[in-house]
Structures are given as structure tokens and as C-alpha cells.
């Protein structure tokens, strides 16, 4: 089924296309997923910590379609300036990373990591026959399959190769992204702020009401389980997270919509950093930022968002240094598609195809991978795809998650050798 996005430039209080809407659509909304509390993870971290030196993957999904051409900018190409008047940057504000490419002015943190060889930029990433629907394209990226109808996610299939453990893969937020849905087991969702467990008389009654009953049909049993899971929160745990994660400032509102998406990225990464530092037995973390669907007034909105990405990822990695786990962590940053080369009539860009993928961390072999798509040889007015995203997945599976790529992707030849052995 081809799904259509809900988005608009004139929202007036209605929600824009965000990660939440994508997840709502996907229907996997924590069907079989456990909802964890911070306490659960903290408890696991103290009782069975992840051995130091175990590689950890942090996936950062940028929802809405990040404009790759204004992220990694071909600042010497006159076609770039001619194609999108009003949404280009002055060359002197850019952060050059090669003779002809520069990072968005807001990405100074990522630029300094690039200078220390900790950033791999894979250019022109996409897949054959690009789909310009947010839903279909995100489903393709998250399933790791060009059939968007595939009902498991690429990391869910990786989970299927792992021992059963709700801590293996954790997504920040109350709903589980399709990426973490497997056949045998799915990742867990960790709502920021956690769930309010009913207490007192009503709590005791709810606990009784959610006991399994032999007469329940499968859906009633699922209803009982969902309520019971509210109580499966361990109560006496070393308060690793005694202090609440500092609430970063909300992202500014841009272009009439809430450009920040659901939850604050800095806050999500702050919780992840604390839990990794504490030794959580978790090899995959998923965080996200929405608001990249910049059909109008793009430059300002995207700059704010990329700034948030750059700052929070940089802060995250430096927070980890003290724990001795910084060298274990690899961050993958992607979006469901790039945007059109040509601007539209409202100082924005419409849905496009290829875009850059970032890999960040000590284990990353810094530099460029994949060819920069040409601005003259467009396919239907869009950038040509030069690297298949599954090349990157295959390398991550093998070099970070230490799992044969074939078990997740089937036979897949391509690799992006951006991770040190």
C-alpha cells in the first residue's frame, strides 16, 4: 500500500508530518514491543553490564527528508546556486571539508569531528527506483528492503539472530520504530519521562485486572498484557539516573510548523549516554529528530535542525569519553530521502532522492565514500543514487554488530568500508 504523508505548510496548531505520525501509520506501534522504564535499563546495567569494548550502534533517524544538498554543499558549483536562489548559503559562512564540498554553517561540531577523522560521509545514498513518499521511503530504509511492505525491520532481523533479551535494542520514545521489529523479538521502547504506573487502590485493582485469564481470546490477552506491562517496572534500583536528564531548550518553531518533531534530540541522546556509560546491555539504540520536510522557508529551519544534530551528537560523544565507551560507539545518521535540486516557489524544496549518510565515532574511518551525485546528470530532475544504503547496513552489521550481513539482508555484495576492523 502506498501511504501518503500528512503534512502541510499552514498548520495552525495541527501537527506536521513527524516521526509520530509515521509510527502511528506503521501500525507496529509497540504491538509486541516491551515498554521499558529507565529503571529497568539501569537495573540491567548494574546486574549484567555490556562488556567494555563491545561495539554499540546508535541510529539517528531524521524524519521528513533532509535536504542533502544543503547539508554537504557543493559550494563551488554554479548550478547549485542557480538552481535554488534564496536557499543557498554564502560561501564564506560554509565549513569546507574538501576542495568543492562544505558542511552547512550550523554543523561546526561535526566539522571538528571530521577534522579528527571521526566522520565518514557517504554521498549519494539511496536505492533503485526512488519512492518519494515519506511513508514508503522510510519503510524501505527501515525494513532494509526495497519492498516497503516487508513487515520486519533490518535491525529487527538482526535481533532475531540474537538471544532473547528486551534490552538488546532500545528506541527512545513511546512508540517503536518499524526498524526494530523482528519476527522472534522486537526492540523495546523507552519513553522519555517514563510511564505513570497507577498506584494505591486503583493500582492494586489494575494489577488484578491484568492477570492472564484462561478465557481470554488473543486480543483480550494482549489488552491484559499491555496493562500488566505497566507494572513490570522494577522498583528498587540503584539510582543511576538520579538526576533527570537536563531538559534542553525546545527547538525553535520555524516555517509555521514545529520543526523539532516529537522529542528533543539532545534529551534523547543524554539519556542514551547515561545508560551506555552505566553499562546497559544494549547494542543498538535508536533516536530521532523530525521536521526535515522543508517545503517552504527551508534555509532557516534546516539550519536549526542540523545545528541540533551536530551539537547533540558532538556532546553525546564527548559525554561518553569519561566512561571509556566512546571508542565503542558508532553513530549512523540518515533520512528517508534527499530533496529536489531545484527550489520550489516557496523557498523550499520538494521530495527528492539521494542524500548523504553520516557515520560518526572512533571506529569510523573518516573521509568520503560514494561519488558525489552530479548536478548536471539528473534523473527525472533528481540526484542520481551512487550508493545503495544497504552497502552501509552490510558494513555496520559485519563491523559493528559482528553479524553476517546475509542473515539480515540476504545475499548483498556491496560494502561501504568506513568502519575500522
Amino acid at each position, binding site marked *: *500500500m*502506498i*501511504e*501518503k*504523508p*500528512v*503534512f*502541510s505548510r*499552514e*498548520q*495552525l*496548531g*495541527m*501537527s*506536521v508530518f513527524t516521526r509520530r*505520525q509515521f509510527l*502511528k*501509520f506503521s*501500525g*507496529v*506501534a*509497540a*504491538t*509486541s*514491543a516491551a*515498554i521499558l522504564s529507565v529503571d529497568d535499563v539501569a537495573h540491567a546495567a548494574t546486574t549484567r553490564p555490556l562488556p567494555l569494548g563491545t561495539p554499540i550502534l546508535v541510529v539517528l533517524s531524521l524524519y521528513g527528508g533532509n535536504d542533502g544538498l544543503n547539508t554537504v554543499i557543493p559550494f563551488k558549483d554554479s548550478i547549485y546556486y542557480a538552481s535554488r536562489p534564496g536557499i543557498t548559503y554564502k560561501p564564506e559562512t560554509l565549513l569546507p571539508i574538501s576542495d568543492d564540498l562544505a558542511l552547512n554553517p550550523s554543523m561546526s561540531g561535526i566539522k571538528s569531528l571530521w577534522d579528527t577523522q571521526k566522520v565518514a560521509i557517504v554521498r549519494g545514498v539511496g536505492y533503485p527506483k526512488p519512492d518519494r513518499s515519506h*511513508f514508503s521511503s522510510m519503510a524501505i530504509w527501515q525494513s532494509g528492503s526495497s519492498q516497503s511492505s516487508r513487515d520486519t525491520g533490518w535491525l529487527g532481523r538482526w535481533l532475531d539472530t540474537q538471544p532473547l533479551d528486551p534490552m538488546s535494542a532500545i528506541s527512545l520514545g*513511546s*512508540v517503536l520504530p518499524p526498524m526494530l521489529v523482528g519476527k522472534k523479538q522486537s526492540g523495546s521502547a523507552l*519513553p522519555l519521562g517514563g*510511564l*505513570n*504506573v*497507577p498506584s494505591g*487502590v*486503583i493500582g*492494586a*485493582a*489494575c494489577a*488484578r*485486572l491484568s*492477570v*492472564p*485469564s484462561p*478465557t*481470554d*481470546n*488473543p*486480543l*483480550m*490477552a*494482549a*489488552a*491484559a*498484557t*499491555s*496493562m500488566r*506491562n*505497566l507494572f513490570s517496572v522494577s522498583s528498587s534500583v540503584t539510582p543511576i539516573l538520579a538526576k533527570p536528564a537536563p531538559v534542553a531548550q525546545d527547538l525553535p518553531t520555524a516555517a*509555521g510548523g514545529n520543526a523539532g518533531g516529537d522529542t528533543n534530540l539532545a534529551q534523547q541522546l543524554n539519556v542514551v549516554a547515561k545508560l551506555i556509560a552505566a553499562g546497559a546491555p544494549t547494542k543498538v539504540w535508536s533516536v530521532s529528530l523530525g521536521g526535515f520536510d522543508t517545503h517552504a522557508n527551508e534555509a532557516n529551519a534546516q539550519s536549526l535542525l542540523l545545528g541540533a544534530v551536530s551539537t547533540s551528537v558532538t556532546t553525546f560523544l564527548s559525554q561518553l569519553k569519561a566512561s571509556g565507551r566512546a571508542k565503542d560507539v558508532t553513530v549512523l545518521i540518515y533520512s528517508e530521502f534527499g530533496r529536489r535540486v531545484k527550489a520550489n516557489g516557496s523557498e523550499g524544496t520538494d521530495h527528492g532522492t539521494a542524500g548523504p549518510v553520516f557515520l560518526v565515532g572512533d571506529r569510523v574511518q573518516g573521509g568520503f565514500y560514494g561519488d558525489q551525485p552530479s548536478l548536471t546528470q539528473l534523473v527525472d530532475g533528481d540526484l542520481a543514487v551512487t550508493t545503495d544504503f544497504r552497502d552501509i547496513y552490510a558494513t555496520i552489521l559485519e563491523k559493528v554488530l559482528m553479524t553476517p550481513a546475509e542473515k539480515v539482508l540476504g545475499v548483498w555484495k556491496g560494502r561501504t568500508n568506513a568502519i575500522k576492523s
Partner: protein
Amino acid sequence: MDMQRLETARLFHRFGYGPKPGEFRSALNQGLAATRQNVLTTDTQTRAAPELTDLGPRPAPNSPDIVEYSRVLRYQNQLLLMWWLDQMVTSVNPLNEKMTWFWHGHWATSVGKVNYALPMYNQNVTLRKFALGNFTDFAQAMFFDSALQVWLDGGENTVKAPNENLSREMMELFTLGVNRYTEKDVKELARAFTGYRVTRTSGVISTAARRRDNGSVTVLGKSAVMSPEQVIAHLVSQESCQRFIPERIWYRFISSTNPLPENHPTISAFASRDIKNLVTSLINDRALSDPDNSVVKSPVEWFVGVSRALNLTPSQLPSFTKLYSYLEKLSQLPFQPPNVGGWPTDQAWLSSASAQFRLAFATWLASLANLSELAAVAPNNRVEYLLDWLGIVEWSARTESALRAVRDNPQRLLTLAICSPEYVVSA
């Protein structure tokens, strides 16, 4: 399991929004045949239309007028939402109302993109007009629905630059089902759909001759110059349509997991494309007595059912913001389906987060209800009394003991009863 109770409960909760106090017991006394007949006796009366106006062009982003404009826009959307929720709760014979809700999820259009309440209201009027009518007429009317046109970029579909959004969904989601047409059909159908423009705020559709592709198109084997009405009649006449609509109704009313059986009676009942015929056939079908076919009430269905049982009127609740926020947290707001595919089903509504929100919502609703009737029942009989009141087939031993523990407090008892697996799920 008491089969009469099972079927009666399904008739109430699936083909309506759950019983009002006393209705379930009275239906049991009348027997199944009479209850089926009652369900099919529909009431198409609607409450007075909400006062919606054409807001006219939107003022510039930084102009002083934008604040008032935005306020009125928000207010109109609120009026519209309350109007429909009230309509669902107060409807006397709610089959037509329930079918309107079904069709809203079928031709799923969101105010998130349409923005304006007036075209969304107009669409709702069309949905209720044809809810049990002729599907050919219905599909033709929906093509000329301005909200759907805006939602699927109909105005951008021109002879020079065809946009396939509406034509694809017309076949995939609205009339035929996925893969029952080719990509070529999508492109050709888009050509037959060109030539219309929509004024968003008023919902007025006008023809734009210069945008119209006047050539012959070939859609599903038929080549001709066809108007939208003609080509839609051609789509609806397909055999795949005769199967597709029964499939969709089965999916929402009977089971999202057990597929519609081959040669199911509803398919032949739909031969003339008469929706009421189809629904009548389904209401008399043995699927209704198969215990395998349970469904989870969606958040709106749950809320409306509770409001009916408790005699609460949505627009009279003390806080619109609170009501809106609960429905939003439970991920279902009328007029805001998540995408053109409509809302998910069953397990998607059963996360721990939604269990928590449902409990909070239930606590609030129970605190607003007049529970003197329940309080008048001897505590020892209250748990059983709730069965008929809420239209529940039976309590499990688990739920019965949980409820008995709080029977002395009617408010608490009711809160838990409407959060029980037996109420959240239509058995």
C-alpha cells in the same frame, strides 16, 4: 459462552457504538431477529449543522489579521469535531453513523492538510448521505469532494503535469485494492481526472478547461474519452470492486486477521453495489457468531461507547482541551487519520502507553458521570449489573474478582470495568 449475548453484543458494539443504559437487556428480551431488525432500522437524523463559514484567503504570515483568522480557524475545527462526536454519542439507531465513521477511515482525509473545517464538514455530509447507499454514486460524489481533492493533490493534476496521487488511491485504496490494476492504468486514470480546481477555504470545485486532458484514455481495458463520472463507474463495475468493498467492511467489522472467505455471501449481496444490501448480509452472517472474530475498539469507538453508557455529551464535558488531549494521546482524532490508508486496527491500540492513557481517560469520564443508578444497586450485585449496562458478553473470573474488590465505590468500579479486556475488546 452464551451465543445470544455474543451476537447481541457484537451487533451493538460493531454496528453501533455500544448500548445506552437498558438497551442491551431489552434487546436480549426481544431476541436476535428483532435486534438485527432494529440495527438495520437506521436513523439518518443529524444534529444541527455546526456554524462554519468560508474564512476566505489567509492573511499574510505577519499581518495583524492572522491572529484572529487562526483563532476562528481553530474554533471552527473544534466545533466540527464536537459536532461529530456528539452525533456519534446521541444517535438513536447508529448504524448509519457507524458506517459514516467506517467511510471516514476508507476515504481517509485529514484536516491536517485540508486545514479548513468547512470542506471537512461537507465531506462528512457526503459520507453520511451515501453511508448505506449506492457505491457507484458514492464514489462519483467523492471525486467531486473538495477535501479529498485537496488531500490528494487533485488541483495539481493537469494535462501538462499530471499528478497521480488521486488516481492511484482511487484504485488502490478506494475502489479496487492493491495490485488489481497496472501502473499504466494509474497514469491513464490521472489523465481522465484532470481539469479541476479547488478553492480550499470554501470547498468549491470549479472546472478549468485548459487544464483538462481531452484525449481518449485506456483504463482497465476500456478506451474512450471519459468524464470522471464515467471512468469511476467503470472502476466500480469491476469484479475486483465487488470483492474489495466487502473485504474492507469485513476487515473493520468482523476481523482484521481472518480474511473474508472466498465466495462469501456479502460479495454477491454487493452485486448491485448497494451498500445496505452488503451490510444486511453481513449482519445476518454466521461470522457474527464465530468466537474467533474479535476486534479491539479503536479509541474513538471506546470513548463514544463509554459516553453513551454514561449519558455524557462530548461538547458538554468541562474541558475540550482535556478531551482532545486524551484522544490525541491515544492516537485517534476524528478528521485526522494518520494517512490515506486510515487508522490501524486491533493490537496497534494495545500498547502499555495507551493502557495508561485509557485508564486516566476512564478515571476522568467516570468522575463526570452520574452514577446514582449504579449506586442504587446492592454492592453485591453491581459487577453483574455492569454486564448488561455496558453490553458485555461475560466477565472472566479474573475480571470479576478484580471488580468485586472495588464494588463499594461505584466510580472506581466503573473506571476499571471500562478498562477491562472484556470492554476494550469486542469479544
